[in-house]
């Protein structure tokens, strides 16, 4: 791991050089507006960089008594993506696992992912709605393949395992022993706090066992079943396919939401999730039970709190999970 520090001016200079290729999430732009350059692109939600709100997969037309299909090659240019630790975890620990499975790789996602260099900005200003520490994250979480930056004594701390990808490392100066220790202590404190508060290990199975619980009904009453939470969630990855055009058209892939009544509607007319209760339960259990049970305990939620922040009726996934967790084995 290579680490160092850099002055604010030098960091901004570097950002300016690459600004045309920089995607910056709304959260970073909001917390640290100085990191947003004129020509860098602000995105609402980190997943937009890889998993497009809508995408054309192939064109088709009927001609000479047969279907002619023309594939659309996904294209992507190398880019930088600057985001908070929670948002970045959504890519490394959730979306990559879903879309880059060796057996089923999603080609568009893979193409965009390949050239993407991640810049993680340590979170110094958590929102009241945040809860990354409950789901295995912490405000200084980083990934060795990314560039991690953190405001540090009027300067910025830098760290990465891939210095060849981030030429900014050449400009960095090395930390002295005291500074190194200071960073380590800060990190340790964050990690320990997060470890203490993390949801207990039996939560995924425990919630699974509460599938039929009456409480889901109460929890779901106020939900409007709009898709605001799922569309702004960095980890929600469900999509829908539709053919746009009868004899000539294209295959369309769009974001979909388990909150929508038609999400699971079968062609027969049967809907296995007919009411609010089933749909709300699905959103909670997919993130807090099915995903961790399948993916070595990793939660499908990164605790960024965006869904809580924007919910029109203040439906609170953290509160819902904590309420259900209390019921596991009748914890008091």
């Amino acid at each position, binding site marked *: 791991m290579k680490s160092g520090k850099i002055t604010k001016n030098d960091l901004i200079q570097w950002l300016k050089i690459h600004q045309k290729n920089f995607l910056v999430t709304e959260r970073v732009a909001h917390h640290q507006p100085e990191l947003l350059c004129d020509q860098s692109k602000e995105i609402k939600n980190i997943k937009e960089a890889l998993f497009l709100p809508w995408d054309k997969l192939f064109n088709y037309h009927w001609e000479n008594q047969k279907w002619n299909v023309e594939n659309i090659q996904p294209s992507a240019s190398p880019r930088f993506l600057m985001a908070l630790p929670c948002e970045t975890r959504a890519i490394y620990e959730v979306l990559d696992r879903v879309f880059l499975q060796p057996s089923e790789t999603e080609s568009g996602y893979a193409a965009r992912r390949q050239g993407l260099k991640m810049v993680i900005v340590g979170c110094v200003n958590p929102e009241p709605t945040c809860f990354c520490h409950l789901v295995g994250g912490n405000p200084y979480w980083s990934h060795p393949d990314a560039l991690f930056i953190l405001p540090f004594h009027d300067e910025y701390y830098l760290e990465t395992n891939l210095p060849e990808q981030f030429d900014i490392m050449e400009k960095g100066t090395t930390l002295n022993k005291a500074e190194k220790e200071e960073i380590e202590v800060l990190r340790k404190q964050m990690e320990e706090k997060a470890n203490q508060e993390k949801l207990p290990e039996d939560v995924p199975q425990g919630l699974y066992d509460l599938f039929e619980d009456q409480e889901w009904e109460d929890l779901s009453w106020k939900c409007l*079943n709009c*898709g605001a939470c799922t569309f702004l969630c960095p980890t929600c990855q469900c999509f*829908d396919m539709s053919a746009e055009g009868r004899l000539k058209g294209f295959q369309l892939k769009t974001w979909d939401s388990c909150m929508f009544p038609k999400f699971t509607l079968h062609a027969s007319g049967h809907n296995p999730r007919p009411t609010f209760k089933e749909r709300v339960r699905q959103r909670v259990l997919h993130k807090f039970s099915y995903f961790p049970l399948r993916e070595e305990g990793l939660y499908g939620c990164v605790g960024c709190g965006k869904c809580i922040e*924007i919910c029109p009726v*203040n439906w609170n996934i953290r509160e819902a999970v904590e309420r259900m967790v209390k019921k596991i084995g009748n914890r008091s």
Partner: protein
Amino acid sequence: MFESILIDLAKKLLREKTVDLIIGYGSTHYPFRTEPIVINQEEQADALVWNPFCGNNLARYLKYYKNTQHKIALMVKGCDSRAVQVLLKEDQIKRDRLYLIGLSCPGLVNREKLQKQFPQASPEDFEWKETGWFYHGEQIDPELFLEKTCLRCRYPNPPEYDQLIGKLQTTSPYQTYQKDYLDPIDNLSSEERWDRWSKEMRKCIRCYACRNSCPLCYCQECFADSTQPQWVSPAPTPSDNFLFHLVRTMHMAGRCVECGACERACPVSIPIAQLPLKVEAIIREQFQFEAGTDQESAAPLLTYRENDPGDFVK
């Protein structure tokens, strides 16, 4: 002060079995926010709150009870009461199943505006009295904080209610502030207006929070969800977003009660209420009609008169 009257009333209604359940506002863990709650036990009534952050239009929840026998008490501000009247007129629920707890409302407070002005403030720093809003004992100008849709409110008092909480407002924000949310747009040229809305429509992610928070969007199948036939593509392109919002606006014509719930629900801050508000402004001027203000007059788009005005048809 208002809350204790409200809670006493709620307890009485449940104790005497005047109603089976009460749909109201409850507090949340986060400051300056409330949530819709439903209660059916007397002891749950203490959870009810009434403050300037009660932004949801609770008439929206009546559709859940359309086919039940429950007698329902509903907390209604002026706009919510208007929504109930439209629902009654459209035969979505019967009046004798409703008990309307009327709330005299000086206007809702916009959380972002408030937090910008008082970044460190907590709800305890404020006091809401009949004479106005106070921060540490000092009166503050509500105009600075009111929701844009509330600044033009003409009905701070519910036109219909069974019991009123607080005193009737003697003036409306519309009279007091003389500001219309629509003025800045009306003053734009049509090209500027097109550019502005194109920009707003690009922001839309089509989560349908606006539609789903609306008390009067109760279609069993929304045209936007229909796949056979498909009227609008599921892709959130600017043109499909326009189509969705404009068709929804036309469906609301003569029915919108100007509550602004759609705009408050929008997670990407599109000033979406302006579309139906503009249509209602035209209807007010051309047909001298305001949705939900009485039980008798027919909605302009549901009736025909030979002398109907047509100046707005271009």
